[in-house]
């Protein structure tokens, strides 16, 4: 029942946010018509956002492969579809056809669940991103008072999937990958949350919507450049892409936590990673670059442009840097990022204290 009320409250939030006014159909005192309306709106928006996030993943993987190939004197995918645009879809079909191999010693349930634990939170996270503020076509599916907290919570689930997958595989390399994943995420999570808290202090709200609205004059990157650096680095670390791809680390640990995975299970890990990249690019854009705020163009376009800039920065870093070592990484997390984020917290607390209502 709790879940039901939770969903209802979310749906109520949507309808309230959309300013839909109509006379609900009631039966025996229950506003059933209203519920149906909520339900339809929610389903449509969830499907839309799901499609959007999948399209984002497909586009990112294509752009990544082409861009990487271009940087490395290669051609990249150019056979399937126009300029190789359908390569990913062909890859997915190939992966689905593959035999599903589960090691005999593996914990079968956990082994099966792990890829979805990486993939699902990404989709859930997309639901909470405020994509625009055009009144009726609002692409924000859910708006309630704690969206940014939920967003971070969803992003925290993904590494748990990596850890479970690594432990369940019953392989030494996977085990090392899982342990590294755990250490790395702890190292980055604390500085990330502290720099997020300073944003929340400045915005005075936990809602992603309010955080964006608070940046209509000055984006938070200006008063909180330290926090931005910390958050951005932590985001790269949380996605486990190079230079922080320690859980996978292709050359040392074979494939880290995903060593034993093959076929579509591996494909889900892969798509989850790229989805996570898109999600974190949008989160950085929302939290520090003012999300949809921007002149002339519609808000959605602004957010997508800002997100795309971050995705390109991620890819550029991916292409040009090597892998850091685990002790260097933990040193960076605990020794530099944590103090920096605390300093940033103090700065933003001072700003909020002295210029309280400015933002």
């Amino acid at each position, binding site marked *: 029942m709790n879940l039901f009320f939770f969903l209802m409250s979310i749906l109520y939030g949507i309808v309230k946010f959309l300013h839909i006014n109509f006379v609900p159909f009631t039966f025996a005192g229950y506003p059933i018509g209203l519920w149906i309306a909520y339900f339809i709106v929610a389903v449509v928006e969830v499907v839309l956002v799901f499609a959007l996030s999948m399209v984002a993943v497909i586009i990112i993987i294509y752009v990544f492969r082409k861009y990487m190939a271009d940087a490395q004197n290669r051609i990249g995918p150019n056979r399937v579809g126009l300029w190789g645009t359908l390569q990913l879809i062909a890859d997915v079909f190939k992966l689905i056809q593959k035999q599903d191999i589960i090691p005999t010693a593996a914990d079968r349930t956990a082994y099966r669940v792990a890829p979805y634990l990486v993939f699902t939170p990404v989709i859930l996270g997309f639901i909470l991103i405020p994509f625009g503020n055009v009144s009726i076509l609002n692409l924000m599916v859910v708006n309630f008072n704690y969206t940014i907290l939920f967003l971070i919570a969803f992003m925290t689930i993904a590494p748990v999937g990596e850890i479970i997958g690594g432990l369940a595989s019953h392989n030494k390399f996977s085990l*090392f990958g899982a342990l590294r994943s755990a250490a790395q995420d702890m190292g980055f999570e604390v500085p990330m949350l502290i720099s997020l808290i300073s944003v929340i202090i400045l915005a005075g709200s936990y809602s992603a919507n309010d955080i964006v609205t608070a940046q209509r004059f000055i984006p938070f990157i200006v008063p909180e450049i330290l926090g931005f650096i910390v958050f951005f680095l932590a985001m790269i670390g949380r996605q486990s892409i190079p230079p922080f791809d320690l859980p996978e680390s292709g*050359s040392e640990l074979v494939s880290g936590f995903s060593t034993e995975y093959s076929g579509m299970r591996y494909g889900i890990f892969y798509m989850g990673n790229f989805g996570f990249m898109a999600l974190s690019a949008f989160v950085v854009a929302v939290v520090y670059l003012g999300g949809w705020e921007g002149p002339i163009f519609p808000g959605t376009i602004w957010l997508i442009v800002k997100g795309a800039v971050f995705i390109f920065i991620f890819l550029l870093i991916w292409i*040009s840097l090597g892998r850091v070592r685990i002790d260097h990484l933990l040193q960076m997390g605990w020794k530099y990022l944590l103090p920096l984020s605390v300093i940033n917290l103090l700065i933003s607390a001072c700003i909020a204290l002295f210029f309280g209502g400015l933002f």
Partner: protein
Amino acid sequence: MEDKVIEVNFGPQHPSTHGVLRIKVKLDGEIIVDAQPVIGYLHRNAEKLAEMGAYPKGMIYIDRLDYVAALNMELGYVLAVENLMDAQVPERAQWIRMLMVELNREASHLIWLGTHGLDMGMLTPFFYCFRERERILRIFDEITGSRLLYNYFAIGGVYSDVTPKAIEMIKEWTDDFVTKLEEIQSLLGKSYIYVSRTRGVGKLTADDVLSYGVTGPMQRASGIKRDVRKNSPYLFYDKVNFDIPSRTEGDVYARFLVRIEEMRQSASIVKQVLEKLPQGEFYNKKYSKPMLVRLKTTGESYVPTESPKGEFAIHLIGDGSSIPYRVRIRSPSFANLSSIPTMLKGYKIADLTASVSSMDPVFGEVDR
């Protein structure tokens, strides 16, 4: 404490073992307690096979030792055989050999640089290195007719002359190779991540190097300035100017710098050889194949050469019959590998790949 140590097999099927190296590693968390190399997965009996045929027939097995620097391997064999039978080699043939060997050293070091980048988690330098290597292979294709295993050096010369087109290609290559190398080096050497991961990692002191018989760039990175090309010149290495790069740190970063500098020196040697290349015969007509097959010699010969991995030589013993009595291969990678336990103890897993790839082992040569 005992229970915490787990044993992990790195290899023989592992993405960063450069072939079929297996390292039995005892790990305490991420720290390496003990590491033992296990070899023999690519053993092909090259020595005994070479002892079964006439002298020129051994070449194809020698070719396949260090397959990324096949010409350097051929040179070792050819020099040993020629020394054994006091063969006369035309001057032009010797210069051509020098040219080819230096080009092949570049190709080998480029492969090392690319795979070293891969082991450090960088994909991009790999493609840049292979782009440059591809140009060298095209030159080889033009001169010798093949790209990887050449069978090009013959007893008494080389099998085909350097064509004018090939000389054009080499000139074109030498013109911009150094700038390209600079570009690749900056990708790795100017990256803080790379430098912090390699400095002070996989250290070998000068004593270690001497006791393990480590040679080549690894030796020179540990402070022992010894290069067979300078110390006991074979071909015409005494007639060209080049430096022996050396460092004293003995870590992975020092090996990286030494190899890069060696590539520069090789490029300059290639340039000088092109200037000094004399006209004349490229093959001593006296040594035809039928004559060589029936050739009977006695005695021993050992001519050390500097292969990309270190001191390479073949100890050849003739017993008066037409087939060699003994073909003993002194392969540098084999000796270099023996330093693995010293090099890895106390470092982390991530340093294992860095250190092993800094040795540049090629398994055709280790396992013979």
